[in-house]
Every structure is written in C-alpha cells, then in structure tokens.
C-alpha cells in the first residue's frame, strides 16, 4: 500500500472532492446551490452534529455541524414539509444528509481503488460538546452557505499505519 504524502496540495484535493460532493448532494436533493465560506469556528452554541466514520486505507470521519434552525431547514428541504423542532425526524434527516455526502465523497476519492468503507451515520445533539481530533490526523474545515442557512463541514482523515 502506497503511503499518502499529506502535502497541502493533497489536503486541498480532499477539500475539492468534499465541495464537489456537497454540490452534488445539495443540487440533487435540495435543488439548491452552495457557497463555500472561509474557515469558520464551529457554531456556538452547537446544536446538532451528524457524522459518518471512515475505515480502511484512510480512516477518520466526516461531520456536518448545524445550528438548530439549520438542522430543521435541512430536514424541511429533504422532506418537503415544514420542520420547526429538533426531533427524531430532523436527526434522521441530518444523518441521511451526511450519509449521502460521505458516499459522494467516497466516490470522488475512490476512483481507482476503494479508499475506505463508511459507517452508518450518528447524530449528536447538545450544547457543551467539543470535537477533538488526533494530533497526527489531517483536517479540512469550512463553512457552507445555501443562501438560506449556514453550516460547517469537517473532514478528518489519517492514513492507517
């Protein structure tokens, strides 16, 4: 197995792949364009984070962090019905969004060989939590705007030793 050289260019390529995956998901499922925002802090207070784990040649996770309103907007966009409260339907919709995103991202980076498998999605809700990553992992973190709401995309990757 060839080791990945984690140069800034490789990290940029990962970001480009993730943005393409975001565009694919939001164009197809939400009929909405997206704009990438400069690196931002995670929403504070946080309300909801939906994540999918990666395992294989690459490991890590992909996480979308939403405010409560943005999470409800995501669910409304997917289901075509108004959603105003953080309930199981909203959690499930956020999980499915990150699941589809992870699949698209995987397809972007696994064109010649399968780089990783993806886990079933998990959703975390709360106000006082932080997401810590290992020191030797590589991270891509940026904000995303749909024009109606914003959220944060976080990709953390490391190569299996």
């Amino acid at each position: 197995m060839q080791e990945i050289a984690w140069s800034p260019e490789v990290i940029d390529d990962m970001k480009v792949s993730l943005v393409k995956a975001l565009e694919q998901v939001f164009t197809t499922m939400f009929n909405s364009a997206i704009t990438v925002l400069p690196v931002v802090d995670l929403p504070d207070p946080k309300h909801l984070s939906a994540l999918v784990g990666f395992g294989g040649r690459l490991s890590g996770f992909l996480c979308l962090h939403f405010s409560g309103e943005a999470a409800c907007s995501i669910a409304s966009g997917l289901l075509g019905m108004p959603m105003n409260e953080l309930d199981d339907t909203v959690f499930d919709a956020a999980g499915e969004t990150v699941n589809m995103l992870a699949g698209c991202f995987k397809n972007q980076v696994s064109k010649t060989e399968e780089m990783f498998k993806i886990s079933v999605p998990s959703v975390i809700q709360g106000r006082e939590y932080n997401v810590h990553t290992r020191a030797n992992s590589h991270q891509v973190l940026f904000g995303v705007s749909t024009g109606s709401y914003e959220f944060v995309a976080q990709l953390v990757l490391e190569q299996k030793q």
Partner: protein
Amino acid sequence: MSKRVLTIDDSKTLRLIVGKYLKPFGVGIIEADNGAVGIEKAKAENPDLILLDYNMPVMDGLQTLEGLKKDPALRPIPVVMLTTETVKETVIKLIKLGLKDYIAKPFTREALVQKLNPILGLYEGDMPSEVDLAAMATQAQPQGSIPDKPAVLIVDDKDNVIKLLREYLGEGYNVVAAANGHTALARIQQGTFDSIFLDMDLPDISGIELYKKVKKQLEAMSAKVVGMSLRTQVTEITQAKQLGIREFLYKPFSKGDVEELAAMLMYGKSAAGAGDAPRKFLVADGNIRILSFPDEKDPSLKAFASALSAEIRQEVSEMADEGVTRLIVKLSPGLMSDFGSVKKFVSLLDHVQRLTLSVRLVADTDKTKEQLRQYSEMANLKTYDSVDLAAASFG
C-alpha cells in the same frame, strides 16, 4: 391494482422521500428499517419490488439480498439497490447475486422513477412533468387514506396458514399478515383493520397476551377479532372468550369456514340465519329512511360504529329490497371520532350507490362540516343544513 414497493432503509428520511416521489403514481409503500424486518415484510406482503439500502445496521444490503434470493418464494421479487455504495466490485457482486439494478444516492425523483418504470410500469411515453406530478399526487390515494376493501390482518407464524387464508378470503379484502406477535403489534400501531385473524399459539407472545395489549386499540378501530386454534386448546379458547373474543376459526379449516366467518364479520350475514332480533338503526319517515349518527359523547357510539359494516349495511339492503329508495344520513362529529368509523361509513356509501339509492347527507353543525373537510374522500360531498331541507331536495 396499484403497485406496492417495500423500502428497506434504516433512514426514515429516505423511506419518506421514496414515498413522496412515488405517491403520484399511486404506489403503495411498505417500510422496513433493517434487513431482517425487510425479509419478514417481503414474506408477509409479497411486494412488486424491493428498494434496498446497502449500508444498514443488523443486516447490510448484501446479507439482506442473499436472504431474499435464497428464499424460493422471494427470489422472483425484483430488488433495486438505493445506495451510496457504488464501488464497481461491490456492484458486480450484488448483480451476480440477483440485484436487478441500482440507484446511487443522492437521487432525483426523475432518476428513481425512470429506473423503476420498466419494472413497475408507472407511466407510458414521456416521464410526466413536475406540474403533472403535483396534480397526480393530489389525486392519488394518500398513504393511510380510506381503502375500498375491508382490511384484514392475519397473525400466524405458519406460512401455509397465511397462504390458505389469503386464498380463501380472495380478492375482496386487503389482507396484511404478521408472522409473530411483535410484528402484529407494529401492524396494529400503524394501520386500521376491520378484522383480525389471531393465532392463539404464536412463537414470541401468546395470542391471549397480544390481544390484552391491543384490545383497547382494536375496540377503538371497531375491529372484530377471530381467534384461531385447535379445537383441543380448550384452556386458551375459554380464556379468549372471557376476554371478549367471540368468534373462532378452528384448525384445520375449510374454504367454506373462512368465507362464512368473513361474510358474517364484514357484512353481518349469519350462516345459520339465526340469532337475536337485530336493533333497527334506520328510522322510517314516510317513503324515506333516516340514519342518525350518535353524538360524540353518546355511549351508543361504539356500538353504532361497529354496526356500520354489518347490521346497518344489512338494513340498507333490506330497504332497497322493500322498494324504498330515499335515504337521509344525519352526520355528527361522532362519525369522525375514529378512523375506523369513517372507513366503514365510506364503504356504506359505496354500498348505497351500488343499490342505486338516493342519499342526502345532513351536517347541521360547523364542527361536523369542518371534520368532513378533513377527509379527502368526504370533503366534496354535498351536505344539507337540516333533515327537512334534505327531504325537500328529493322533490
């Protein structure tokens, strides 16, 4: 007959999206949140197509597909995978196992419908436009709306019993099956049934225990329960009768046994033609018969709702036999107090139309009118403000 699709996906969101996308085509959606439940539902419901996710807990898509294809009864059902998993090697492996096709997530309605059209025959010619689809969705019977046939739930762990009952009941019923008590519980939570054939000897929970758990819900939907057992299970039969299960279908049963019992339950026809003199629900007023719904708080409401598909239906048939052709139905919010009553009432109206009777509906309160508007099947029915006005309208 509308097509039915089983969606096996751990995401409720995805199952809802599939339902939304296929609704304009009148497709009925059956849902399962994992592969194990999916295989059980496929056995019980025999859908026209299965949409299968790959990345799921309990059983993944590959294991589920293997389970579906190794069962001779389920093997012919086409399976289409709806998945983020599009790695070539995996897809080839799935196709070798018998996968019909796959759709990559994310997906548009157009992509889903175009893939499924060759299998389900959803439309002819060009794919309908979004505008047409919106109109079709409005016209299509929504999920959970009122079906035109009595709904029957069969609860039995033996496939041959379910198969025989389905066969003997025939096309006149919407039959749903559950192979164990827990599946039956889920079915009862999700649906409304006119009648339930309940095996007393289930593997996970006894028929008696199951009945105790759902008795109130069954009463609320005016469902009639038929116990199924061997004649020798005297203790269970006695217990069931003490709890309120009046009818029994003894195994082994014949086609005649089932037809006789079903007719009696659904339409109030006793095979023996004997029994107590029935209460009369239709009141004669000259050459008109009047049926009045009890008010919401009237203690007789439950009995009235129960009689809608049996005794009242019978009385309507008898008035037609007597040559009386005019019927006035005075509605009340009591009718709309539960979904089962509404369903029975719509079925009664169909019966009235088949007998070519003239019927007038009276809604004399705002609450009654408002509640009528909540049901698509009744929202457009013409109503009169009083019995007198309705009677005058006959001319």
